[in-house]
Each structure stands twice: as structure tokens, then as C-alpha cells.
């Protein structure tokens, strides 16, 4: 039987080893093959472009988001400063504080019992103007209850902006008597709340408005629920924390006209850089810097409608401007605490002042000595940035930045419409903003 099986196997082995006719080649099979190759070949290209597309989209979103969130944050800071200015810091937010002190502690404005004075002076001229103007104050001031009563319910708002506005507008008009009575009766409870708040809140003003639902709630409860309080207070902690970093940069650079640094002058700038890591490799950054750009150029590069009686031989200029860059950086090296990244992007110049001095060939001036232009010219996204950044992370929060850069004009800059090119090296420090918000 085994022999028969082997014979059968041999029949098939020999018969199938040598086809009479090979399967004829079909072009359709190769077409399918080619499609398969093309399909997989295109994928890397898509992958290559995805980060760029994503970066561009994220850049726009971050920029818009930054603009959107920036304005509401300013108001409470201003008001906070006003209150603080009226009431110098006093130490301690412990359980032995007066109720008013406790109110202050909840506001998160570090330092002292500012609310006490604020409340006492509420009906005097010292009341901030914006408080008096508030329709909420006028309509509901006396009925407002302590914002320490954090029972959820009426009018709870989720947005930071609303909370902040509520807090700022309504704090001064709380009925002090009611608040004081309640707090006197429940000093221990309130103190405990303060401890909870102080333990759970960061110093960020953005977190504080979580308390503000109580402002709207006219609760007369004398024993606020501590658990609810903690729950409400901690709610904002679950919100998204962007991975931002802030840098302080200063640089010395050379400024020349028409790609020439032969007649360049040394300028400089200093400013803030705001960056967001989109991924391990990609970072977008923006910010603002104050630039001082002196330069010297021949009359040939200078554009003006003024007809000189005697043409000056050269123009000395000194421009002071605010530069707003918008860059994308790609990390090409990153080991241990050292990173090297390449970046590009566009800058906008908001020129604050341009001083021009005309240099004549003769000893005596035959024409105007110069002129100044103040706060007139804008060059939006007209400068191409090329930079390489070396970053050495000193610790988890602070890093050292060294950034050689080149700024190439895409259009003429300033009143004189020169092609002003800048090259220099910036040095600075970066702070990991995310580490500041971590508890």
C-alpha cells in the first residue's frame, strides 16, 4: 500500500513539475501587480505630508485658540490687581482666619484679606468702577449669597470666561452680613473647605472660577457640602492642558540690504517665544520680540518719491519694530537632554519707528538730514524665517536655547522699501509651561 502511495505521489510530482504549457502571461495580472506596488509606494508620500498638513491645521487652531482664550484671562487679572492694590498682603489662610479672610482665600488671590476691605468699602467710592457698572450688581447685589456655598444647581456655568466674569462682578456685592453670620456659625466647616480648596486649586486664575456657581445660587445653607465643593473645584483639572512652553530669547544680529552683509550693522532683539509640541518631532512656535534693526544702504536701494536736489550717497536707518513669528520646527536630533531642530516659518513686522539719516558726499548738507516715520508700516508675513535650534534641557522645566537664524525678506520692508535681511544667533531659556500646571 505504501508503495502504491509513493507511486501516486511520483505521478503527481513528475507530472506537475513539468507543465506542458506554462500558464500564459497575462498583462492584467501585471496591471494588478503594478497597482499593488503603486498603492504601497504612495503611502510614504501621504505619511510624509500628513504631519505638514496636520501641523498647519494645528498651528491655525492653536493661534486662534490662543487669541480666543487670551482676552478673557486679562480681565480677572486686572481686577485682581486692583483689589490687591487696595489691600496689601497679609499672611495666612489658616483655619483661624476671619470669615472674610476665608472668602479671600477662596478667591485664590494670594496674600491677604482683600475681600474684607473690599466688602467694607463696597458702598464707598473705593468700589471699583466696573463693579458699580455691573447690571448684576445693581439688580441682585443684596440677594447674592456667599460663593462659598457651592451647592450645584442654578446657573452653573462651565466656561472659564463666565466663571471669571461672575466672580469678578459679583464678589463685591455679596451680602457681608449674611456671609459673616454663616461663616461664624460654621467656621470650622468653612475652614475645612478652604483647606480643600487650597489643596485642590492651583494658583492659576483659570481654575478659580470653578467656585463661581455659588455666586449665582442664593442658597442659605449653613453647611455646604464639602464633597460637592471638592468635586466642583477639581472639575477643571480634567480639562485639556496644552503642552506649551515659553521661552525668553535675546539675540544679536547683522542687518543688511539686498542679501549683502558687507555694510551690515549690528542690531538685536529680545522677546518671548511661545511653542507647542504637536508630536515628538514637530513643534509650532510663535511669540513677539522687540527688534532693533540698524542698517546702511546705498541710495540705489532706497525708494522714495522725494526728489533730492543732491542725492545722498548712502542712507543710515534705524528701525524699531515688533516682530511676530510663526514657525514650524522639526526635530532632527534628540538624545538625552540635547535636541536639535530645524525650523521655518513667516514673520510679520509691526514697525514702530523708522529713523532715516541721509549721508551726503559733500561736507555741507545740500538736502534734508533725515526724517522719521512712526508707527506707520506693517509687513505681514513678509519675512521668511530659517533657523536651527539647539536645546539643552537643564532640568524638567528649564532648557537652554541657542538658535542661529536667517530672516529673508519676501517683500520690501518699511518706508524705504528695502529688502532687509537679518542673520544672527539668539540665546534664551525655555520653560515647560505644562510643568507649572502639574500638581
Amino acid at each position, binding site marked *: 500500500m505504501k508503495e502504491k502511495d509513493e507511486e501516486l505521489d511520483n505521478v503527481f510530482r513528475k507530472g506537475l513539475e513539468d507543465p506542458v504549457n*506554462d500558464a500564459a502571461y497575462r498583462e492584467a495580472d*501585471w496591471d*494588478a501587480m503594478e497597482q499593488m506596488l503603486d498603492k504601497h509606494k504612495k503611502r510614504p508620500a501621504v505619511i510624509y505630508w500628513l504631519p505638514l498638513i496636520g501641523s498647519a491645521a494645528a498651528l491655525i487652531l492653536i493661534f486662534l485658540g490662543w487669541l480666543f482664550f487670551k482676552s478673557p484671562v486679562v480681565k480677572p487679572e486686572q481686577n485682581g490687581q486692583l483689589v490687591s492694590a487696595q489691600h496689601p498682603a497679609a499672611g495666612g489662610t489658616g483655619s483661624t482666619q476671619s470669615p472674610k479672610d476665608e472668602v479671600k482665600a477662596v478667591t485664590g488671590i494670594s496674600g491677604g484679606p482683600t475681600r474684607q476691605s473690599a466688602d467694607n468699602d463696597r458702598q464707598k467710592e473705593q468700589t471699583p468702577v466696573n463693579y458699580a457698572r455691573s447690571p448684576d450688581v445693581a439688580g441682585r447685589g443684596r440677594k447674592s449669597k456667599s460663593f462659598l456655598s457651592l451647592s450645584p444647581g442654578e446657573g452653573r456655568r462651565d466656561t472659564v470666561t463666565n466663571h471669571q466674569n461672575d466672580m469678578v462682578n459679583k464678589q463685591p456685592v455679596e451680602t457681608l452680613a449674611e456671609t459673616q453670620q454663616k461663616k461664624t456659625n460654621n467656621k470650622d466647616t468653612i475652614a475645612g473647605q478652604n483647606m480643600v480648596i487650597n489643596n485642590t486649586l492651583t494658583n492659576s486664575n483659570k481654575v478659580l472660577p470653578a467656585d463661581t456657581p455659588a455666586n449665582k445660587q442664593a442658597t442659605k445653607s449653613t453647611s455646604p457640602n464639602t464633597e460637592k465643593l471638592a468635586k466642583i473645584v477639581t472639575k477643571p483639572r480634567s480639562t485639556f492642558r496644552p503642552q506649551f512652553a515659553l521661552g525668553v530669547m535675546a539675540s544679536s544680529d547683522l542687518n543688511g540690504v539686498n542679501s549683502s552683509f558687507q555694510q551690515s550693522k549690528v542690531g538685536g532683539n529680545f522677546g518671548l517665544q511661545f511653542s507647542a509640541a504637536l508630536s515628538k518631532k514637530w513643534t509650532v512656535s510663535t511669540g513677539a520680540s522687540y527688534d532693533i534693526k540698524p542698517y546702511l544702504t546705498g541710495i540705489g536701494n532706497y525708494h522714495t518719491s522725494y526728489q533730492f536736489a543732491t542725492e545722498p550717497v548712502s542712507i543710515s536707518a534705524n528701525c524699531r519694530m515688533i516682530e511676530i513669528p510663526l514657525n514650524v520646527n522639526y526635530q532632527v536630533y534628540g538624545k538625552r537632554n540635547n535636541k536639535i531642530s530645524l525650523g521655518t516659518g513667516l514673520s510679520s513686522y509691526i514697525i514702530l519707528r523708522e529713523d532715516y539719516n541721509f549721508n551726503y558726499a559733500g561736507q555741507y548738507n545740500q538736502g534734508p538730514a533725515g526724517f522719521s516715520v512712526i508707527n506707520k508700516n506693517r509687513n505681514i508675513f513678509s519675512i521668511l524665517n530659517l533657523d536651527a535650534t539647539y536645546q539643552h534641557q537643564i532640568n524638567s522645566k528649564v532648557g537652554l536655547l541657542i538658535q542661529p537664524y536667517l530672516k529673508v525678506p519676501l517683500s520690501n520692508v518699511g518706508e524705504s522699501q528695502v529688502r532687509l535681511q537679518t542673520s544672527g544667533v539668539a540665546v534664551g531659556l525655555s520653560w515647560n509651561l505644562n510643568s507649572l500646571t502639574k500638581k
Partner: protein
Amino acid sequence: MGEEELRQLIGGCIKQDRSSQKMLYKAFYGFSMGICLRYANNREEAAEVMNQGFYKVFTRITTYDTARPFKAWLGKIMMNVSIDYYRANLKMAYTEDLDKAEHVSNGDMPDRKLNYDDLLGMIQKLPNAYRTVFNLFAIEGYSHDEIAGMLDISSGTSKSNLHKARQKLKQMISDADSASNNNTGYSSGMGYSPIVAINKVVDMQSVIFNKNIRG
């Protein structure tokens, strides 16, 4: 195809040169299809599996050791993609009842010489599991232990499937003989024509090309 020409084609494929890839594809089309047809149910499936094999060849051509025969490397890839392609379907066929096949006599081999198309047609009529084991054991020469490892089955299952495959093939041969005896006009391959779609009007240049490679 000479060694030098093959080396040049492989060099072109390493550079992802499309014309080199196509020439290599055409040169080894018949050889590769011959392998895949044995494992496939039909020509279309075989072409699909073969293309997957060539895709591996083109994307992993840099791993090819030029000291070894290219056809052996290519054949191994084709066999592996065939096994991969049908691995998921193998278990479905294990429970097939072969009572009828058990009654086939073991004595008689075909009276006449069966040609390639006849044999391929019979192989393709086997269930996937039997066909795969029969291919690996009878034609490729692997042992049951090796097959068990390749197909992720037990050695006993491999033996069982081989036995059942043989029984089925014997039955098919017997049937073919009967049909041949009953029909004097029987032409070889009539009963078990494989779905190979051999183009009888063969492009002679292509045939010669392939033959050269095979030789």
C-alpha cells in the same frame, strides 16, 4: 536567462525600477504560477496569491542572498504566500467526510499517462487542507512534522489529510479511467480540466523566454 541578465534585473529591482520589476515578473511568471496553481482553487486565486508573492519579492529583494539560486528563493516565497493565503481556510476542511474515498481500491494506478492539466485539475479539486498537505508532502518533499509546523496543525492531522488526499486522488484517477474506457473519444484532461486558462495560442516568445529560465 543568463546569470548576468538576472543579476541586472535584480539590481534594477533593488532600485525599484519598474521596468526591471516587470521583466523579472514576466520572466518568472510561468514558474511562479505553476507553484501557486497547485495550491489554489483556480487561476484567479493563483494569480492573486502569485502577485502577493511577487510583492514580497520586490519589497524584500534586498534580503535576497545572491549566493543562492534565485528560483529557489522565489519558489519558497510563492509556497509560503500560498500557505498563508489558505491557512485560514484549512480547518474548515478537516471535518469533511471521506467515507466514499475509503472504499477506493488501492491497487490500480492509471492505465494511461495523465498529463499536466489532468493532474492539476485533480489537485485543484481537492479540499484546501488536503491539497496543501499533499503538495507539501508529495511534491515539495516536506515531512509530516515539518508540515505540522508550517500549517500549525498536528502531525497526525497532516498524515490524516495526506491519506484522505490520496484516497480522493485515486478516486479521481479511477473515475478518469472509467470515463476514458467508456468513451473512446475521451481526450485527456476532459474530466478534470483545471481552471488554468492556458492560452493555447501561446506567445512563443514568452514560452521560449520562460523555458530558458526554467532550464
